[in-house]
């Protein structure tokens, strides 16, 4: 039983259990990320008429592990003109929040590994904003023009889309009457999944989260054909691996958040809760890969105006609609 919803104060015992929970989340996330990258390459390959990785291990299953190992043993290069301390700090600053947000995700009815806090949703949104600083610092500290442009774009983009993202989930919070993610899942367990009454919110969330994750068509910060690699152009070896990990842990976390808020979390008939959760998470991730395969990249100025002129008014409208609906029903 990994649920501390009842524990009102910290004791040695549940403190230790929390530590174990943290390790489990870390390993789980790393495992999921490893095979998300593998799945991405396989799915992209399948959609593009290629084979994808198939050399290392059966069906190429060891490919990502080999890639990560390769990054880990590479020479650690810090550019001479870079701002050394900021350059070293940036990947950590980007990476840590991406893991921390996973602590509030209810993986199943009985699996909340570390924190079942009453403001789980707010906690997620607030922490994920810290990553922007890592990205911005990385772009600034590299002392590279492409990295600088990439970092600036990234900051502008993530800030702009944080707002509609936060607004779109407010509808769900209103529906459940709580910011606790477990309560939100429970409210869907007994009634409709939020995707039905909150369809507009779901659409906004989907777009805003894609932008928040810097994925196609919103992958401007690392627009390969323009900025080459954007903010992490000067990073190599395991620091680069940290940025990559951040990206994919966020993909996992955002998928988990989407599943929790809109797709009923772990609830579902017949199958065990954790499996339902995994299916929903993978559906979101697959959707992202699918989009990545289909869409060109949107332009920076269009990106901004789309966020402020379309998504934000829509999400505000959604909140009003939900509030009125809640009052009447």
């Amino acid at each position, binding site marked *: 039983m990994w649920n501390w919803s009842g524990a009102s104060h910290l004791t040695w015992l549940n403190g230790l259990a929390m530590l174990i929970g943290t390790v489990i989340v870390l390993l789980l996330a790393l495992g999921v990320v490893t095979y998300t990258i593998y799945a991405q390459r396989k799915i*992209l390959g399948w*959609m*593009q*008429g*290629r084979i994808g990785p198939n050399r290392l291990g059966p069906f190429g299953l060891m490919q990502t592990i080999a890639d990560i190992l390769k990054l880990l043993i590479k020479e650690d290069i810090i550019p001479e003109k870079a701002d050394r301390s900021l350059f070293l700090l940036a990947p950590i600053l980007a990476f840590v929040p991406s893991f921390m947000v996973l602590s509030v995700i209810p993986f199943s009815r009985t699996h909340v590994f570390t924190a079942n806090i009453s403001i789980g949703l707010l906690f997620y949104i607030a922490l994920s904003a810290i990553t922007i600083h890592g990205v911005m610092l990385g772009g600034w500290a590299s002392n590279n*023009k*492409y990295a600088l*442009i990439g970092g600036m774009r990234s900051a502008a983009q993530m800030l702009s889309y944080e707002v509609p993202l936060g607004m779109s989930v407010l509808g769900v919070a209103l529906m459940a009457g709580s910011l606790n993610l477990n309560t939100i899942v429970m409210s869907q367990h007994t009634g409709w999944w939020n995707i039905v009454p909150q369809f507009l919110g779901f659409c906004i969330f989907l777009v805003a989260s894609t932008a928040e994750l810097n994925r*196609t*068509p919103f*992958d*401007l910060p690392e*627009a*390969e*054909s*323009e900025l*080459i690699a954007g903010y992490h152009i000067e990073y190599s070896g395991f620091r680069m691996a940290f940025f990559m990990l951040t990206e994919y842990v966020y993909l996992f976390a955002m998928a988990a958040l989407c599943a929790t808020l809109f797709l009923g979390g772990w609830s579902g008939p017949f199958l065990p809760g954790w499996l339902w959760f995994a299916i929903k998470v993978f559906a979101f991730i697959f959707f992202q890969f699918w989009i*990545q*395969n*289909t*869409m*060109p*990249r*949107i*332009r*920076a*100025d*269009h990106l901004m105006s789309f966020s402020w002129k379309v998504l934000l008014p829509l999400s505000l409208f959604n909140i009003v609609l939900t509030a009125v609906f809640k009052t009447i029903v």
Partner: protein
Amino acid sequence: MALTDEAQSIRTEEMILNVGPQHPSTHGVFRLVVKISGETIIEAEPVIGYLHRGTEKLAEDLQYTQIIPYTDRLDYVSAMINNYALCHTVERALDLEIPERAEYLRIITMELQRVASHLLAVGSYLLDLGAMSPFLYVFQERERIVQMFNELCGARLTYNYMRVGGVKWDAPPGWIDQVRDFIPFMRKKLKMYDDLITGNEIFLSRVRGIGVFNTETALAYGLSGINLRSTGFDWDLRKKKPYSIYNRFDFEVPLGKNGDCFDRYILHMQEMEQSLRIVEQAVEQFPSSGPVLGKVPKMVRVPAGEYYSGIEGTRGELGFYIVSEGKDKPYRMKIRKPSFVNLQLLPELLKGQSMANLIAILGAVDIVLGEVDA
């Protein structure tokens, strides 16, 4: 008031950014020195010559037949057309008669080459704009064309297929049937690309009204090919100055209206359809037998004088200008390279644009660095 004072006192600086020579979107080794203020381009200066091999100078020490493989390496994605451009100039100088079968083989290979080249142009353009898949898809169709060329002349990229007076190899048995089967296949695929790309809102927002120039500008800069036709100016050498046997085929010259990047993209798609039409007719009319190489003297000696002839290459007017002293080697050879000429407009187009548009505009001008630098 205080706000404007503050805004004026903030020191801003222009930044010089080197795009290339190693940059994924410059289609080869091309460097663009861009002066930017924020993300707005103030000035752009192309730096070329990283792929310069001195083809024109080398040609002065080569016999005419020996120059043909060098033309393969100009615009390396449309080698057949380059081959033809040189052979055509020499043939015109010699006033040679080309056998029917050779003419048809030339037309078929050249138009298939145009399809292959345009496919690559569209695919890499979409890759520049951030769409990954079309680039990989186009290679599948291009592969079929390349395989057919491989069967015809044993090479996949640098064909060295045309000769003065005809072509080197006759089509192997069943080759024409392969071409015939390819046409409906390619039409289906073109429909697929149309569905995938043309209606995409993001794509449209990135190319509509971007990089606009008008006919006067285009003519003043000497543009040709799709870059000129996108402004609505009807100029296709296959129609205007028919060479080979192009006057036997029924095809249209698609024209643009606005002269923007979208028009240049859509013209690529429409020209592929027209090329397929030409190939279809050529396959129907293909003579069942006959020689593929005309009566050519053992040593090709171009009579003394100056000769120029241009053909409609994939990227514009591709011409060879030969000055001969009556020997077996040219005294001087000058190549009118469409990519090189089209590139001149780039600094003009980029002024005042954003960095994101840079890639969209550069991609639509559609250069091949092998040709620009020659």
